[in-house]
């Protein structure tokens, strides 16, 4: 069990948590800016209002004739329920003549304009004696007296209080909420990642059947998990195949090698003449050649699957290729009593490796001739199609069951029907490897009345009327 501090540390290290933190920080900064703006605007308006009051009052009092100024000042001070008005008249020497401010404030110029100033001490019964911060104005009257008026800034302070409180009420819960949300998100993410991590650990220990956990949603983690699981399916399949290939290869080599061994052993004991020895050696060599052919074929498929030969691709005329293949295999078909037909409906050129394509088509023809009964037909044809040219080999053999069509492409796989016929089970694997190297699609179809194998050469057909011909006759 992890300690809470460690868990917190882990969460704090997650992307979700860091983003939440960043967003909360940004939100707070934005709120502070907004509130500062509101405060600044409110203060500005309030100050303007107070300045208006003080200045107009000062003007009214100053304009009152002689002794009436004192009365006007007293009446303004009296009509003040909240105790915000301050004012005094001072003689030219600075002596207080009227009002509640005892001394002329230092730093307040007698220019008739509003300033922020500290006045005091204050002489008033309902308020303390301390100096007050006010918006104040001072002006000289015509007779040399100095009029000082002040208006308390309490209201501004109150506005500030309200704003700061609102800021606290708004921002603090938002920050707390987002941090909590971030923690939950990070924790949940962390939990899923931990599950994925454990699954990967098990896969790395060799449990290839293990899959990454998914929640069945369509979120990013599920998408990645789905892709990785797809990859694991393929890897598992490949590993199974390799395992199968290793077993099959060992088995396929053991059969001819066992024959070699028994033959040599028997001939050592029983052969009496040079001719008998030679015959035994020839049979042993034939068996070894069979074993070597299996090894060569496996290596060759490996070489093709490795994909290096793609570098040597050049345009291959499919019509010419099929004509060559038919020419090469026609005598073999004839020897077996099978009719080989060639149809070239539309010729086209595709980028590819001519030798490999010929070998692939040759393997298909070889299979077709091998499995089709004497007196029937094998047809090699080239069609133009919506998805490119298509090479088709059709025979009258027993066909391949739909359930076996995937598996016949695996190395060493042999159908029930083909086990009695000589072969290595590698021919179609090679065709599949060549098709895959070229990016072509290999399709196996047909019915019990014959097998149809198609190689769909995806690059588009280049129509060539000069070469588009029908050749129903034998080559």
């Amino acid at each position, binding site marked *: 069990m992890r300690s809470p501090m460690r868990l917190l540390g882990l969460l704090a290290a997650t992307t979700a948590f860091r983003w939440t933190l960043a967003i909360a920080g940004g939100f707070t900064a934005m709120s502070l800016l907004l509130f500062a703006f509101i405060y600044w605007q409110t203060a500005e308006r309030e100050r303007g209002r107070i300045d208006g009051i003080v200045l107009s009052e000062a003007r009214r009092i100053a304009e009152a004739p002689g002794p009436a100024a004192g009365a006007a000042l007293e009446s303004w001070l009296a009509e003040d329920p909240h105790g915000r008005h301050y004012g005094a008249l001072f003689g030219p020497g600075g002596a207080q003549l009227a009002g509640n401010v005892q001394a002329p404030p230092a730093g307040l110029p007698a220019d008739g304009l509003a300033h922020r100033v500290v006045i005091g001490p204050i002489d008033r019964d309902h308020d303390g004696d301390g100096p007050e911060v006010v918006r104040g104005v001072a002006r000289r009257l015509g007779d040399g007296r100095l009029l000082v008026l002040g208006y308390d800034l309490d209201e501004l302070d109150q506005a500030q209080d309200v704003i700061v409180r609102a800021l606290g009420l708004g921002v603090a819960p938002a920050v707390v909420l987002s941090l909590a949300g971030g923690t939950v998100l990070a924790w949940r993410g962390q939990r899923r990642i931990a599950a994925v991590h454990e699954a990967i650990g098990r896969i790395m220990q060799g449990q290839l059947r293990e899959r990454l956990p998914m929640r069945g949603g369509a979120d990013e983690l599920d998408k990645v998990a789905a892709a990785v699981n797809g990859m694991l399916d393929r890897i598992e399949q490949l590993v199974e195949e390799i395992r199968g290939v290793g077993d099959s290869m060992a088995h396929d080599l053991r059969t001819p090698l066992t024959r070699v061994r028994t033959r040599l052993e028997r001939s050592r004991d029983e052969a009496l003449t040079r001719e008998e020895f030679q015959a035994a050696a*020839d049979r042993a*060599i034939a068996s070894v*050649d069979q074993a*070597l*052919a299996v090894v*060569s074929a496996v*290596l*060759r498929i490996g*070489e093709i699957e490795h994909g*290096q*030969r793609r570098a*040597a691709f050049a345009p291959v005329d499919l019509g010419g290729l099929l004509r060559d293949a038919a*020419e*090469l*295999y026609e*005598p*073999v078909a004839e*020897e077996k009593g099978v009719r080989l037909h060639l149809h070239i409906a539309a010729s086209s050129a595709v980028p590819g490796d001519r*030798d*490999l394509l*010929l*070998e692939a088509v*040759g393997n298909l023809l*070889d299979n077709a001739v091998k499995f089709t009964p004497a007196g029937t037909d094998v047809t090699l044809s080239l069609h133009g199609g919506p998805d490119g040219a298509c090479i088709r080999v059709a025979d009258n053999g027993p066909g391949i069951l739909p359930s076996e069509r995937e598996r016949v492409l695996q190395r060493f796989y042999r159908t029930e029907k083909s086990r009695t016929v000589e072969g290595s089970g590698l021919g179609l694997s090679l065709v599949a490897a060549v098709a895959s190297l070229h990016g072509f699609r290999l399709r196996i179809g047909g019915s019990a009345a014959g097998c149809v194998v198609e190689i769909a050469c995806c690059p588009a057909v280049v129509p060539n009327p000069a070469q588009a011909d029908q050749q129903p006759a034998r080559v």
Partner: protein
Amino acid sequence: MTRLLLIEDDAVTAEEVAGYFRGRGYQVSCAATGTEGLAEAGAGRADVLVVDRLLPGMDGLAVIEALRHAGIRTPALVLSALDGVDERVRGLRAGGDDYLGKPFALAELEARIEALLRRPADGPETLLRVGPLELDLVARTARRGSRVLDLLPREFRLLEYMMRRAGQTVTRAMLFEDVWNYRFTPRSNLVDVHMGRLRRKLDAPHEVELLCTVRGISFVLDAPP
């Protein structure tokens, strides 16, 4: 006596190959490293070279390149366990005259070495004659005595190839590489079927056989003595 220099590091293979060729009248010398082989071949003491591709110290292809660079044109056959198409091309580009992948049949190696020793086979003549056989390369006609042979284009090329190498053993793989120009190993009897067809046209039932199969893997065309 033909002098064959075998540059091969595997002692067992070297011994078997050397023994086989000594039994066929060759004078065989062996070198186990590239440097040793280069010194031997450079001294001009060989008529034909068989060079393994992978050798300790100096690579087989480097040996051939060094020889060719020094102006020594002794025909060389490259032996290699690396039997990719690229490897073959690389071997020939380095100055090798032929390339044979391991494992190989000794008879195949022998046929190829004989072919190398008899080079060049493709002369400028336009009329080929072997015993009663006559091949007109310009008119594209073939005759055995007075009988005109009706040959398909590929059969004509096969016969031309065999007539140019009359008396010489030619293997299936050589025919497939040189007449068809394909670089893959076809089903074993594919070439045999084509040769069988040619033979039926060449040798009528009552006639002397001109085209013979040798030990099941190669062919030879020869005039009767």
